[in-house]
């Protein structure tokens, strides 16, 4: 056996039972921590955030692990650059803050930037794609999980648009909470 093989074979030393037990306990704590952090990250905007109403169009696909959902294509997913950010450009993958203002009961975009605004309502997102005329942004609220029949019904009932209630925390992190209305059922007229 060569010297290299000899030194490599030191890795073959078996792990003690005590260490193995410690590792399993560590795994249980790690898994619990991951689930708690994921849970708190999910509920934080709902517990402490402000509810806003956003317009969207739902489409129904299926996730391999999470079941059926409606993909929400919010009006704020596509932002015209000239309108909200005339001089600056955001890179693909970068964090962006979209300022929102209520108009007739629905929150509309009023400004876009890479820095967190000091005042007003805003939502934190990420630039998915960047074009000359517009940005495509994602806010982590684009999926709404429902039983298959309900998801298909919502998609078929929505001919033009629907409105969803979304909670936004102080940091701009958002969680979609519920569907409010679709098409004519929405008493507030669209912009």
């Amino acid at each position, binding site marked *: 056996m060569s010297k290299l093989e000899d030194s490599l074979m030191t890795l073959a030393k078996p792990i003690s039972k005590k260490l193995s037990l410690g590792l399993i306990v560590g795994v249980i704590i790690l*898994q619990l921590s991951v689930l708690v952090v994921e849970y708190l990250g999910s509920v934080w905007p709902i517990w402490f955030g402000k509810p806003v109403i956003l317009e969207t169009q739902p489409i129904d696909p299926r996730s391999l692990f999470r079941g059926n959902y409606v993909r929400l294509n919010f009006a704020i997913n596509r932002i015209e650059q000239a309108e909200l950010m005339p001089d600056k450009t955001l890179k693909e993958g970068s964090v962006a803050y979209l300022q929102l203002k209520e108009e007739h009961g629905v929150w509309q975009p009023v400004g876009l930037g890479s820095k967190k605004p000091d005042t007003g309502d805003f939502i934190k997102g990420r630039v998915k794609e960047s074009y000359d005329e517009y940005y495509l942004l994602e806010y982590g609220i684009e999926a709404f999980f429902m039983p298959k029949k309900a998801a298909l019904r919502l998609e078929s009932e929505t001919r033009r648009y629907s409105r969803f209630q979304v909670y936004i925390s102080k940091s701009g992190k958002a969680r979609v909470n519920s569907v409010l209305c679709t098409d004519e059922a929405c008493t507030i007229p669209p912009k």
Partner: protein
Amino acid sequence: MRLINLLKRELSKEARDWVQDGIISKQQADLILHRYGSSLEQGKATGSFGYYVLMSLAVLFAGLSLILLVSENWNEIPRWLRMSGLLLVTLSANGFGLFYFRQDNRMAAVLWLLFGSISYGVSIMLIAQIYHLGEHFPDGIYWWALGILPLVVATHSRLIAFLVTALAFIWMFVEAEMQFFPLSFPIFILVVGWLIFWQKTSSLLYLAALVGVLIWLNLALSRIIDERFYDMTTDMALFNIGLGLLFNGLSWWLMSSDVSRWKTYGLVSHLWLLRAAIVMLFIFSFDDVLSEFQYVAYQSFWSSMSFLFVSGLAGLGLAYGSGKHAYLPMTLIWLYFLVSFSVLSISLESATYFTIMTNFVLVTMGILLIRRGISQVESHYFYMGVVTLLILAFIRYFDLIGGYLGGAALFLVAASILLGSAKYWKKVQEEDDTGALSVNQGEQSNE
């Protein structure tokens, strides 16, 4: 290293039969099997093994059932009940695993921990479903794989390592598909590598790890070259040929090692790399493939060529000690690609000449494989060589290079090479036989 090393269980079974029939003694059987890194006990069909396999499959099926059950989205059940229910299942399964591990009942411990691992992943997905998390979903798969990774070290279980590897692969693919680079993939491969190289034997996990490393390196290079999209450009092709040569050299090095499982791994990867090399040569043997490469911009051609040069040299260095069967085909492929791509970079019109050359390289590879198969009494290589030559003849008969006359000339030259090799081989064989005969006669006269 001989292919019989891949049939250790079968060899062990045969040896047990010979011992039972009184043909050889138990000690002799053990001595024979020791040569192949096996023993009389290895591969003994035990009831517990069958039980373990069926139980593992049952756990897997139960896990899949749990995923689908959660996917149904039980809106009518309160959130807290759904969440605490699944959390309880996860904690209980892991708790049972810990309990059985303490009792030294490894089999039961691994099965419970496997179920706990699946349940943990389902819990991540359930929270994402309940709170409609539309964020980058590969993160969920990543935390699932990472959350069960230490169990591989703690339990030395190949079953859990399979689950980790599968999740790591899914994560790598979805991450790359969404234009993100799976930077942490090697962490999973390192842990699985530690298990299969130093603790347990699994050729399947070894192959998966090897393929994973190759894909990850390709994605990394693609990121360096283009930043966003993966495309098999000339640079990537050269890079992969270089990697193939390097890994083949490593395979030969592993085969020459004293560690039985390393020998097996070396043989497994060598066989697959050999097949991949032949498939790649077949791809380059078509008229329009090399021409296609002319239209691709050589973005980092000389760095790719340098990589091919250095990795090929390193591979040859590693394989050199294993003899000419090891380094001769490697040298052939290495020099061929170095020369052909260098000339192609200067003269784009030379593509057709190299296509013709590729066909002759394939003929030579076929001859070398047949020669190796016969001299080492390994039918696998012999038939691989024969099949290579027959497929080449079949393809070139239909896909003509240079029309009917060009095709005829190609077949004629290939026939001459085969004829020349056969004559040379016969001559060498006769010389060997004469040498052996004179040695025998010498020994007899001495007696």
